[in-house]
């Protein structure tokens, strides 16, 4: 591989910016171009659904720091429309082209939108992913709508609902399953989240979906028809129903890309549709799907903040180093969410667990820790308002510790009671395992 003279990064958010900085740290001295479809300099997304919506922070105050000079050419407000692998050119909206020797795909994801035929085009229906989304939604919340409907009780849905309650707004949340956060974090956290929602006086509709959003004569949202036939009056709806990878521009490029992401290998090289790595194209951040050595047999796509940063660094390194010096991207996944005044931190991948057990504190109290196991190994932990103990669990996960873990934590239960991880609230515990306390 010859050393590249022109590197193009498509995607000018967290992963794109940190990759550009890392490329310069790695000694890349050639021409560096960043292409981003938003007009804004790179900003941080996590506060959009929290401090920004609540009005404690304006979007201008979410701009990411520049950690070093990158001497790059910025093409902002410019979406990539296509990729010509043979000629090694990125095609831009409007037909212009940007040539590259090496390309980093960091186009991230977007919020899954509500279908237009079911009311998605009505004024008052929102998704929340970008600065502009947040400014629009903040404007509507600040105007004091009589009721906000949040579709989906995942992380974003919970954060939005929580802000609405902080603002004193009536809010209804619909959730397809039997508990908030359940699909990602399982029944133990789901049960605790039920209480957070309840204490915050959120009108939570479980096992319920939205059939249609309906407007008035002016195209303004007025009501939602729920799956149980209920008609709910609401002036604002927030669709928090997951994310899709921004890969349309790669359609027909020959890369293995679809709405689930762009497939790459362990060293961040993009794969062609035939599964072979493409030497000069790399991927990082929310858009990338790759085989993580800790979780064999599947491709992971992590839309986590620290994954964007870490994968950007690994990809940047590998883009300018010889293959013999390539690094494998194998982070221990980690993420956080703040909702209802609660800090939730996670290491590992709870969604892959078959069992879960409370190891410290009590889900009935404010603080507790839940550990997650798969086939007798500890694979994840979630700390609820307990951020100072999680490193200990991370080390155990990385060391391949058994599940349930023998901790004997002084604030742990007398006996560990592992539950089926997918159990919804109301599920029965499986056989108790004595924890062997002193």
């Amino acid at each position, binding site marked *: 591989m010859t050393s590249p003279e022109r590197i193009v990064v498509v995607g000018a958010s967290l992963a794109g910016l940190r990759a550009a900085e890392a490329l310069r740290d790695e000694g890349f001295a050639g021409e560096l171009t960043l292409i981003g479809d938003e007009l804004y300099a790179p900003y941080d997304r996590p506060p959009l659904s929290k401090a920004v919506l609540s009005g404690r922070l304006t979007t201008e105050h979410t701009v990411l720091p520049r950690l070093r000079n990158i001497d790059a050419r910025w093409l902002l407000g410019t979406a990539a429309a296509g990729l010509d692998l043979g000629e090694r050119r990125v095609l831009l909206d409007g037909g212009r082209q940007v040539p590259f020797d090496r390309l980093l795909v960091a186009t991230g994801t977007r919020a899954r939108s509500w279908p237009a035929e079911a009311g998605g085009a009505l004024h008052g229906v929102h998704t929340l992913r970008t600065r502009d989304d947040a400014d629009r939604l903040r404007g509507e919340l600040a105007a004091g709508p009589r009721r906000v409907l949040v579709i989906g009780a995942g992380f974003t849905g919970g954060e939005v609902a929580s802000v609405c309650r902080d603002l004193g707004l009536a809010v209804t949340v619909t959730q397809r399953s039997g508990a908030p956060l359940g699909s990602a974090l399982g029944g133990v956290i789901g049960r605790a989240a039920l209480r957070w929602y309840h204490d915050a006086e959120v009108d939570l509709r479980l096992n319920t979906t939205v059939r249609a959003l309906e407007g008035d004569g002016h195209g303004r949202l007025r009501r939602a028809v729920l799956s149980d036939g209920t008609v709910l009056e609401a002036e604002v709806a927030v669709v928090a129903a997951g994310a899709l990878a921004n890969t349309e521009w790669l359609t027909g490029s020959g890369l293995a890309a679809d709405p689930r992401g762009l497939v790459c290998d362990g060293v961040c090289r993009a794969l062609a549709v035939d599964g072979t790595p493409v030497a000069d194209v790399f991927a990082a951040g929310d858009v990338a799907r790759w085989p993580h050595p800790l979780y064999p047999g599947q491709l992971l796509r992590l839309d986590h903040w620290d994954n964007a940063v870490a994968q950007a660094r690994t990809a940047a390194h590998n883009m300018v180093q010889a293959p013999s010096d390539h690094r494998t991207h194998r982070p221990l996944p980690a993420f956080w969410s703040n909702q209802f005044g609660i800090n939730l931190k996670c290491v590992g991948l709870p969604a892959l667990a078959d069992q879960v057990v409370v190891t410290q504190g009590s889900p009935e109290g404010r603080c507790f820790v839940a550990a997650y196991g798969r086939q007798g190994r500890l694979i994840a932990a979630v700390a609820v308002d307990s951020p100072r103990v*999680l490193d200990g669990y991370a080390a155990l996960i990385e060391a391949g510790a058994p599940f349930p873990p023998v901790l004997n*934590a*002084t604030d742990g239960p007398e006996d560990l009671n592992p539950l089926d991880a997918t159990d919804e609230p109301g599920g029965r515990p499986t056989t108790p395992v004595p924890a062997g306390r002193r």
Partner: protein
Amino acid sequence: MTTTTPHAAGELFAQALRYDNRPDPYPYYAQLRSEPVVCAQDGTWLVSGHREISLLLRDPRLSADRLNPLQQPVRKSLLMEDPPRHDQLRHLVVQHFVPRIMGMREHIDELVTGLLDAHTSERPGQLDVVADLAYPLPVTVICELLGVPREDESVFGGLARRLTRGLDPVNTQTEDELRELQQARAELVDYLEGLIARHGATPTDDLLSALMRDQGPEGSMDPVDLRVTLGLLMIAGHETTVNLIANGTLTLLRHPDALTRLRTDPDLATPMVEEVLRYDPPVQMSGRSTVADIDIAGVTIPKGARVRLLLAAGNRDPHRFSEPDRFVPDRRDNAHLGFGGGIHYCIGAGLARAEAQIALTALACRLRSPRLVADPPPYRENAVLRGPEHLLITFDRLSPAPVPTPVPTGSTATFGTSG
């Protein structure tokens, strides 16, 4: 695998604790670090690697119980207490303590100015940095915060000294000292109970009154918890920051370039105090015990073992810090262990930092040609809370305080910019 024998590890640790080596225990810590986790012949596990200490500070399999029968008080302070009781006690204290130490910089500055003004001299003179600044500053602050009459200092100061000696490993203490410790504990109980009774009679707006009044969700502290917590705050206020300021001054006098830089660039005080906390920490180690087997660094610490986290050793771990034995006043990414970590992270860290930043800057700015009278200075007996007994310095001049330059105020929160 462990190559250091338990005997050798124990010997190295004993050397680090020897009074003769008080001025410089670091070479022994460096040798211990060749095995970051090692069992000494008395069964105590010594942890000296930065990574290992950091992990164990945050591991639920460790208890703050020191398993030391001689040090077991009737009721444990939050320093030696575990969750969930620890969390309840700490929450109560933090709630009342932290708001009271916010925005205190100006007042600390006044106190420092006043203490040094007493020695202002256009002619060559002498100062004991410990007795004249490093000790009275934090003591005044903690007494004001808690509502302890300043005149009680004569009683309490001696008690605190005798009690903190009790933190040192038992085998380093003499029979007399251990007897004295019991006596000091009894005196402390009497003193604190008297203090609480007086506050009960005439409540004020100080921290002690606030703790007595608090009716949080867990209810108020019972009289014993109140007494134990009060004792902890008092002792910590008397016996820790003094060493931070004194160790910092000593380090600066041994690094005249840093002293000169601090004089012209007061912002250097911020990273420099962190570097003092790394390079020569006022609290050298912290005790724990295990409630489950712990696999770490290729060894297994069994359940029920005594553990010593050698913070001062971890702070010089070359795996974490480049040139660890060099004092780098503007060191970056300085994740030192000077205040511990995890759930027991020092409650008074912010206050200690502010006091040290202000005191060291004032010394740098006001002293001309300061010199150590004795290097090393005489050290206190205490090994865990380690620092000079006296720090005599001579100087050509001790200038009056410079006219304060207005600094942007930041004590009131105006988070964000939107409404």
